[in-house]
């Protein structure tokens, strides 16, 4: 019988009341991973001993009365976060053998809050992908339908939480890599403001877009986790020195008087009918909650995918240069000259999608093309950001679908990168503008979860979580779980 409970608050209460121990919760997660992960493939590494030791420490803290709201609750990290003494692969053959000598800010922050990490989750290689099929460790299956993708790049985290293997997991979102998998697996996925959470120790994909966040069942859980992840970190120059509010304290604020903007561009022909219906129903629900709904426009939204596929590859082509076989990670067996060592190492250890993006990125930065591609893309990025600012002059937040379709079949889009890229058409704008956004489950289409996306202004995570929580108080979509989870909720 499962000891896992629907949310952190209930788990914390049970832990404090002595009804369950962190060792039991953690042991249960480890058992469920053992039982189900051969079919899901959501984990790359599992650390039973370390996890149980951390759980015992949490139990001691609980017994001594020094526990916080997250103490003793098991979770998993996307395998992009460095954790001292453990393998950090980023889903790549390149770092298959890489053991990090240090902790990322996200890992140390959540550990300090008492959460128990049971392992590292599968992901698209270097977070480049929207289906979790580019992982060197194989694709992850969607717990709602094992033939389908859980989305990506944080697909392992999403599948693990959706299947009830762990109550929560971290993710990273560069163009939708938290929100899209959350939408496709019926979870709450939060991408904070760029700079809200330190990037220190998070293996970089596209530095100006990457942001760490959470995959949880509920907005209330996300509020607690974000509190432990967010905050200034002098080791990341782009990390914002802005106080971290108590996100849980504002969850129950009323939505009366809030204005929600619905961009008409979100409801174009690309949006599947079932998704459109679920999102419209959710918008109606917000009206019931007291919010005013208003149509807005993001005229340059269509440019966000092309802009993203210039900026992100440009940055990644440079960020991934350090994987050269010299100091760590994979090095080719063959012993030719230096150029040969570089070429073979990188050819052998990077997958096709990573190579495609490195080549695209090197091309758009090269002499003679820089102005036409990279510089132009930065200008359009500003236009998209300006569109959003204009909207936020009129509304408190923007609402719409997270993805154009529910979960698609594994293999369906791998042959056509452009179709795959278009899966992120609604999520990328928030990354380009550095804005916080959240995806919450809002219905089903084809018996699969549908995600509703809320986008806020800079550092408006409190409002996003408040709006998501109010919706989750009024609906039960976030409580629905796939069969494989054994009815955790």
């Amino acid at each position, binding site marked *: 019988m499962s000891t896992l409970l629907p949310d952190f608050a209930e788990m914390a209460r049970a832990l404090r009341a002595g009804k369950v121990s962190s060792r039991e919760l953690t042991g249960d997660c480890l058992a469920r991973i053992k039982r189900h992960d051969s079919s899901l493939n959501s984990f790359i590494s599992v650390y039973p001993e370390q996890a149980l030791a951390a759980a015992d420490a949490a139990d001691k803290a609980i017994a001594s009365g020094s526990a916080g709201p997250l103490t003793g609750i098991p979770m998993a990290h996307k395998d992009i976060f460095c954790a001292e003494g453990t393998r950090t692969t980023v889903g790549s053959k390149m770092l298959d053998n*890489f053991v*990090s000598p240090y902790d*990322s800010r996200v890992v140390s922050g959540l550990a300090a809050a008492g959460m128990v990490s049971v392992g590292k989750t599968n992901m698209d290689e270097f977070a480049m992908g929207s289906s979790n099929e580019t992982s060197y460790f194989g694709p992850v299956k969607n717990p709602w339908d094992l033939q389908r993708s859980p989305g990506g790049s944080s697909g392992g985290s999403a599948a693990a939480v959706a299947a009830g293997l762990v109550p929560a997991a971290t993710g990273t979102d560069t163009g939708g890599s938290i929100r899209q998998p959350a939408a496709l697996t019926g979870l709450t996925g939060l991408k904070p403001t760029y700079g809200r959470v330190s990037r220190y*120790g998070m293996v970089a994909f596209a*530095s*100006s877009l990457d942001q760490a966040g959470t995959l949880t069942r509920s907005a209330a859980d996300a509020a607690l986790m974000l509190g432990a992840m967010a905050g200034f970190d002098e080791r990341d120059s*782009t990390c914002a020195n802005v106080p971290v509010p108590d996100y849980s304290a504002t969850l129950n604020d009323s939505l009366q008087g809030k204005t929600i903007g619905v961009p008409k561009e979100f409801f174009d022909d690309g949006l599947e009918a079932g998704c459109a219906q679920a999102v419209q129903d959710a918008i109606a629900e917000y009206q019931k909650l007291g919010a005013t709904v208003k149509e807005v426009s993001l005229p340059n939204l269509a440019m966000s995918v092309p802009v993203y596929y210039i900026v992100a590859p440009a940055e990644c082509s440079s960020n991934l*240069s350090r994987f050269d076989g*010299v100091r760590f990670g994979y090095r080719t067996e063959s012993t030719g000259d230096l150029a040969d060592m570089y070429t073979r190492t990188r050819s052998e250890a990077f997958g096709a999608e990573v190579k495609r993006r490195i080549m695209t990125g090197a091309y758009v930065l090269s002499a003679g093309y820089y102005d036409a591609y990279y510089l132009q893309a930065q200008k359009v990025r500003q236009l998209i950001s300006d569109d959003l600012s204009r909207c936020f002059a009129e509304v408190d937040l923007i609402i719409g679908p997270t993805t154009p379709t529910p979960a698609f079949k594994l293999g369906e889009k791998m042959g056509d990168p452009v179709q795959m890229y278009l899966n992120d058409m609604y999520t990328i704008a928030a990354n380009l503008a550095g804005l916080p956004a959240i995806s919450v489950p809002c219905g089903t289409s084809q018996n699969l979860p549908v995600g509703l996306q809320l986008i806020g202004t800079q550092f408006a995570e409190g409002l996003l979580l408040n709006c998501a929580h109010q919706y989750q108080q009024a609906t039960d979509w976030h409580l629905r779980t796939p069969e494989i989870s054994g009815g955790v909720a």
Partner: protein
Amino acid sequence: MSWEVVIGLEIHAQLATKSKIFSGASTAFGAQPNAQACLVDLGYPGVLPVLNEQAVAMAVKFGVAVGAEITRRSVFARKNYFYPDLPKGYQISQFELPIVGNGQLTIKLEDGTEKVVGITRAHLEEDAGKSLHDIFSDRTGIDLNRAGTPLLEIVSEPDMRSAAEAVTYMRKIHQIVRYLGVCDGSMQEGSFRCDANVSVRPMGQEELGTRTELKNINSFRFVERAINFEIQRQIDLIEDGGTVTQETRLYDPDKDETRSMRSKEEANDYRYFPDPDLLPVVIDDDFIAAIKAELPELPAAKTIRFAESFGLKSAQIETLVGDVDMAAYFEQVVGEGADPRLAANYVLGDLTAALNKDSLEIAVSKISAVDMAGLIKRVMDNTISGKIAKEVFEAMWSGEGSADAVIESRGLKQITDTGAIEAAVDQAIADNPQQVAEFKGGKEKVLGFFVGKVMQLTQGKANPGQVNKLLRDKLSA
């Protein structure tokens, strides 16, 4: 045909910060390989650069000192290329928006005239590591201690017209960065090095000739030699009907020649773009004002002050002011109560000779400024003569202690007791009747002979003034 030479220099000055430009690792020279490379320097996955504010302050200080524009919002960019001593696969540098913009520097040419050399820009960047080819027989070692060391690359306009001018300019930059304390200036340790862009054109032609870039020249002497070799090579090439190829060339000091490293066609496309891990460097008026307020006295002002305060010869001042440490040493000697003229003579004479002999910098002189003042004061109060002072100096240099200690232990105190000197004078006169006769016959020069004899008899300790006076009195009697 007569040719005009056009030279521009790119000087790399290693900034004298305690830690690296983007990490907390130490910049000290000479550690075991890779002992001073932290995860950031090693380019580990997930680590991020954090700008060292001290490096920014030093760059601005240089900019202010050469009257350059300070860029209010400068940007770090990535220069992408693969090399094993470049851990991240890119160097963090500045490209379109360097921290220091246009400035200028006045240099004094050999013929005494002055020339203004334009400074195009100066930008901050990180140094790379080192490849060690001679440690292992079958492979190359990488030492990343130097990786991430802050550099200020100072780029001049192509304003120099001879190798000598280029060296004068380089010396002037060297002097300024040393005065500012932003660079230790050590060429041996590689903290001050230079690339030279050299071209020639027929005299009177406005269009520039094709240039070559001479890489990494690490002494003033080699800069002059390398440029002169390259000028002659280019002229010979053109006069023989050839053309100069735009390329990078390396100077080989052993063979005294330059040779091709790579041509323009082989040059890297560095794919510069703004580094998204670093925010633009924003510098406001207050920051610049604070830097200006703490700017030390620069060579020009010091020259004027030395002339006014100390009454030294201009050649002496030029040498003293030329090296910031020497100027400071001199001032300390004077500050301890030594006569400025005597101080200048000793610092530029005995001390400089001893330093040169032992190949030492004045900063690590075996005789401290305080002890040097002590020696000069014993000359001033007639405890010892100038001649004995030389012996005392040698003893001090070889570690026998302060001037007083040496005078005491060696018994060198000057004899000023008139009776003792008179006895020696009498004996010298008595021993040398022939010379007495010569003197009396009008041969004044013989006085020197007697002084020598008296000094011999007193082991050089007799006060020379008293000896002279007594001899004169007695011989004329």
